[in-house]
């Protein structure tokens, strides 16, 4: 009975397929096959018919991009009968399911969308038949409206160019930025305070290097910032122009004394410069968190997030980078190497998270080998506790501030008698009230480093080469001006040693290379 009705169903199906998929050739073929096949009882004709049908379905599947099941032909015609009696339909279905391998459905349809050429997707008319079938089924259970979501095999919709569009990618990134900004606003610091960065500086060869680095770090700080630059030897145009190009709010303060060439004296002068800037902050009643950023130090962004948490005075962990800069490293015994403590200065806490003491840099392995003069090729070490590891609430310095604790000394009382202001703890009566920041000092938030050229090194004014160079200087030997005889001879000697050692190393290697090479005459100018 089913077979006799086949050609009619095929004609209907073929017509529907033709309308929906727009593949006229396929439908024409189906038509032909249907009419040719016929409902004959002739066995060979039947088998060829099934073969042709199978081939046709394969072709159509290739064309459409998903499996076009033969079963559809049967089920489409039988949908009108299927739902009239529920039990018989299941019997019919079970008979037909044996022909296909995957689980089959009672209400399959084809939704022929997917493809590049399908400009508009006309819902295939087969779904109308389906709707009526489902309606009759649904009417049996409850009289509600028909869902337009169809159960069964659907095509996988792929657009012709499944690659990202650059405009959309940019939009997505902008969305992400905005969402992150909003997150910062909600969960980040509630009332971001101004950051007052105090930097002592002076004009020398490496000043531009250090200040440019610090400048870029400060430009990335997401909080309102004021950069207080104290310059030894008075303000210079070079420094002022460098600062002006930064785009930050600058307070450029001159300091009368010149910067000495000796590390110990330089340290003391820097301390006095910082104290001077604290006095300026107090005079101008600047409000915010004071961070001591030395120009050669390197700061992480988390430092500025962490210092927002300070109440009055906080301490952070500073990584100390004491680079040697000389060819000979300090000879450390194995024992020394093992006992070498971490090169970190910072607060040490007890188990309940309260300040218990200070962790300082161990300079014992370096005794006798540290640099005394600025620019000397020897490690430069911090002395005691560096100012860079402390942050203050500027209100602590004000004459009158609400809630100012009594363990803070008045600023006027500090450094008056010309005493050495070693570290900011001198500002307090009670050094135990310092707050440890950065997860109790576990996180190193900045690094302390001192790298300088010799005090008399020449560099172009403002780093502009004017007038243009006349003498072309070979890269290897930079003429150093003679200053004091001993220093220069020492340096020249060490330089000579370095050169010789380097040359001997390359000579050795080229000699070894030439001996290993069998091919004659290859004496490369390896240099």
């Amino acid at each position: 009975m089913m077979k006799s009705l086949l050609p009619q169903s095929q004609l209907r199906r073929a017509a529907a397929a033709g309308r929906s998929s727009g593949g006229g050739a396929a439908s024409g073929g189906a038509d032909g096959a249907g009419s040719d096949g016929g409902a004959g009882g002739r066995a060979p004709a039947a088998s060829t018919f099934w073969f042709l049908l199978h081939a046709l379905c394969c072709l159509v599947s290739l064309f459409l991009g998903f499996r076009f099941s033969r079963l559809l032909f049967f089920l489409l015609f039988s949908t009108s009968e299927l739902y009239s009696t529920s039990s018989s339909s299941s019997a019919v279905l079970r008979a037909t399911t044996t022909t296909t391998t995957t689980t089959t459905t009672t209400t399959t349809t084809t939704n022929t969308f997917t493809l590049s050429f399908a400009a508009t997707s006309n819902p295939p008319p087969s779904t109308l038949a389906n709707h009526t079938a489902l309606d009759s089924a649904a009417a049996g259970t409850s009289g509600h409206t028909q869902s337009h979501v169809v159960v069964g095999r659907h095509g996988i919709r792929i657009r012709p160019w499944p690659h990202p569009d650059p405009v959309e990618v940019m939009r997505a990134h902008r969305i992400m930025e905005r969402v992150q900004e909003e997150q910062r606003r909600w969960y980040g610091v509630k009332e971001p305070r101004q950051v007052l960065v105090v930097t002592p500086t002076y004009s020398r060869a490496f000043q531009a290097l250090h200040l440019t680095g610090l400048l870029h770090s400060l430009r990335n700080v997401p909080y309102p910032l004021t950069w207080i630059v104290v310059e030894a030897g008075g303000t210079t145009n070079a420094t002022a122009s460098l600062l002006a190009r930064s785009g930050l709010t600058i307070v450029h303060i001159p300091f009368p004394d010149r910067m000495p060439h000796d590390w110990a004296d330089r340290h003391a002068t820097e301390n006095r410069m910082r104290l001077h800037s604290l006095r300026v902050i107090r005079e101008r009643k600047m409000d915010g968190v004071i961070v001591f950023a030395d120009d050669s130090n390197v700061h992480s962004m988390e430092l500025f997030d962490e210092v927002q948490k300070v109440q009055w005075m906080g301490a952070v962990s500073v990584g100390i980078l004491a680079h040697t800069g000389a060819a000979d490293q300090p000879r450390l015994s194995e024992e020394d190497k093992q006992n070498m403590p971490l090169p970190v200065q910072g607060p040490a806490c007890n188990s309940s998270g309260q300040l218990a003491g200070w962790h300082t840099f161990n300079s014992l392995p370096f005794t006798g080998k540290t640099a005394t003069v600025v620019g000397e090729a020897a490690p430069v070490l911090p002395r005691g506790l560096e100012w860079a590891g402390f942050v203050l609430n500027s209100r602590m310095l004000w004459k009158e501030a609400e809630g100012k604790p009594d363990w803070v000394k008045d600023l006027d009382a500090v450094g008056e008698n010309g005493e050495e202001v070693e570290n900011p703890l001198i500002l307090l009566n009670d050094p135990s009230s310092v707050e440890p920041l950065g997860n109790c000092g576990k996180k190193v938030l900045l690094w302390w480093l001192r790298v300088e050229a010799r005090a008399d090194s020449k560099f172009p004014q403002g780093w502009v080469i004017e007038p243009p160079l006349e003498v072309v200087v070979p890269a290897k030997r930079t003429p150093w001006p003679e200053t004091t005889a001993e220093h220069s001879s020492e340096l020249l000697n060490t330089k000579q040693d370095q050169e010789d050692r380097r040359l001997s190393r390359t000579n050795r290697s080229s000699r070894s290379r030439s001996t290993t090479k069998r091919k004659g005459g290859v004496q490369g100018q390896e240099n």
Partner: protein
Amino acid sequence: MALALLRPRLMPSAVALALLLVACSGVARGQDTERIEGSAGDVLEDDPVGRLKVYVYELPTKYNKKMVAKDSRCLSHMFAAEIFMHRFLVSSAIRTLNPEEADWFYTPVYTTCDLTPWGHPLPFKSPRIMRSAIQFISSHWPYWNRTEGADHFFVVPHDFGACFHYQEEKAIERGILPLLRRATLVQTFGQKDHVCLKEGSINIPPYAPPQKMKTHLVPPETPRSIFVYFRGLFYDTANDPEGGYYARGARASVWENFKNNPLFDISTDHPPTYYEDMQRSIFCLCPLGWAPWSPRLVEAVVFGCIPVIIADDIVLPFADAIPWDEIGVFVAEDDVPKLDTILTSIPMEVILRKQRLLANPSMKQAMLFPQPAQPGDAFHQILNGLARKLPHDKGVHLNPGQKVLNWTQGPVGDLKPW
């Protein structure tokens, strides 16, 4: 002179006003969360105590406790809501021991606890289990026959609810169990105009383990740097090797269209940082699978990731209490190839508002089944839903002798006793 007198008096009030404004702005600048109001009003935080009374039938343990004892995986899979609902009701303040004053009757039968060795629940015996339970309550108490179940509710968290089958076509063919025709069903499945969603059902989220999710929380200031996130199958090669069947081809379409797109972090692996990654994403895809619902929605809401729901006509949990179109993004299955265009063209204020709504703690609480129960959680939302259906209308109580249900309706296999 008058001015001089006025000024000092004005000053303190002016100062007070200024302080008040500053305080207000300070408060407003804090955590911006918006109140969530659905079509039923601002009901997420309602307390059901005092608004309804539930009587819990005492069924023999073979219907409940023995099943859990046989396989304790029932307590942690996504269908565990039925077990936890029973435990909650038994010790809750809305339980009454006097059935005459009860508004609702609860039958604790765990129909989703018959698990395969791999942990998947088999629905084949569930209709018989349910039928047997109803026969028990109708023979031991008069309350079922009084209303033929119209004031009874059942928790059926299976794939297609009370149709009791995991395959959609078979589930549609079976339809909702005829005996439950008048009862209220509390189920996870929801699709508009579908045979397996009865009018008046309460839709609930699937069970997701709240403790496990809480242990994977990261600090909220971790910046959200993933645009779209999804982890799961795209092709179910075991059951649907050719594709096109599983998820109606929508998941496969997501993969084919966006596997090369760096904005879409989609794959089938299951990384150990799955929960943490969701918290670092802005959008989380929640496409349908074999059934339209999934625990992904709960995870997305708890982790603050905007759910992108790709399931045509889906009905989401507590739809009358939670305005889902304001919280999630709905994408039609046909529009999946344009998903990137759709998501990047959502206006910024809309995205930020969705995030604010998701950040509301009552929203997150409403999706969870914590042990022990907490105010505003999913258990309370279910009770609120039941309370909103009160008072029962007059059709509920049948005249004595009136029978509406046909006890022999349904496939022959269901009529076998259990």
